[in-house]
């Protein structure tokens, strides 16, 4: 194939309202960051879906792999003392 390509892949994150976390909503092709941001606006926020966007080159994303899921997350599974329900609080002290 020639040099004629669609450009690299970018991941798009959108923030619905100020104060809320940015959530992944999809991806797109673009040649540079400015175009990635404009394309993200045109592709993912045509109906007021958000008020802020992040675009990240897909190649920059590092992810865990499903095969290692068990052993990777295992260290936290047996630490029930990290949850508030692990602790006994006397009845008379009100909501805590």
């Amino acid at each position: 194939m020639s040099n004629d390509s669609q450009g690299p892949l970018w991941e798009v994150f959108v923030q619905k309202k100020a104060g809320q976390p940015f959530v992944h909503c999809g991806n797109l092709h673009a040649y540079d960051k400015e175009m990635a941001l404009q394309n993200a606006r045109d592709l993912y926020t045509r109906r007021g879906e958000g008020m802020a966007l992040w675009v990240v080159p897909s190649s920059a994303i590092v992810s865990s792999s499903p095969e290692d899921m068990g052993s990777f997350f295992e260290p936290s599974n047996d630490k029930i003392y990290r949850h508030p329900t692990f602790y006994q609080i006397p009845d008379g002290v009100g909501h805590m």
Partner: protein
Amino acid sequence: MGVVNFEDLFEAKLAKNDIIEPKDWMPDNYRKHLIRQISQHAHSEIVGMLPEGNWITRAPSLRAKLVLLAKVQDEGGHGLYLYTAAESLGTSRDEMLDALLTGKAKYSSIFNYPTLTWADVGAVGWLVDGAAIMNQVMLQRTSYGPYARAMVRICKEESFHQRQGYELMTHLAFGTPAQKEMAQDALNRWWYPTLMMFGPPDIESPNSENALKWRIKRETNDELRQRFVNQTMPQIEYLGLVVPDKNLKWNEAKKGYDFSEPDWTEFKAVIKGNGPCNKERLASRNKSHSEGAWVREAAAAYAKKQNENYQAA
């Protein structure tokens, strides 16, 4: 850890209605089936912009023009969501576009029919998008995560498409006799091609068995087609239009309509490239692709230069 049989794990996930994600192990045939189906779906959205785009410059009012522009833009967006969903399976955008432009890839047969009158724009939104929604609502629960998520977005947007089409049909059906006749003519021409959109009858559908087994599809072609007819009939009656099918009648026993099958020989001919507009559609896609080449090349060159400056600084 003992030996894991990936195929068993995959089957177990499907049995539990779990979703398969891009990095999960999947059988080659599942991957191939999805690449074929999702890329065809994406091509359909992109080629689907052409029959309606045909009317943008001739829309009868500014409101109608704005609506049509927004709808056609949505279809382009739908194509893009779907292309990236297919790319997550290991194919590339360039490969898929190449397959479309060279005529190797298929797309929905419906877009090889011409939009001859303004009523056709209404019929496409109402019937064609209506049939697409029926299929896509089911696909929101498909077993492959990126495809299902694309469908959720698409279904939200399609609802406007169908409603604007029906609104347009009401204007014509309750307008002058000539307008009503135009609406009836559009229904006559789009009825059977729309029924074809659900694919061949179950007994002759080559891809259905695997699609159901893998929960890519959750209902059969015939089930979806029946539901579409049941749902659309009251809408047709409201407009005072007549379905071009003498055999169509309510069947109390099955609580649904009996209706004639579309001409499956015609369907096969259109799929093979011999529909009224196949050549025109491919020529249009190729023309805009080659006319846009300089833009892509310039953008790529600019990005490369920016990158070099960044690294030098």
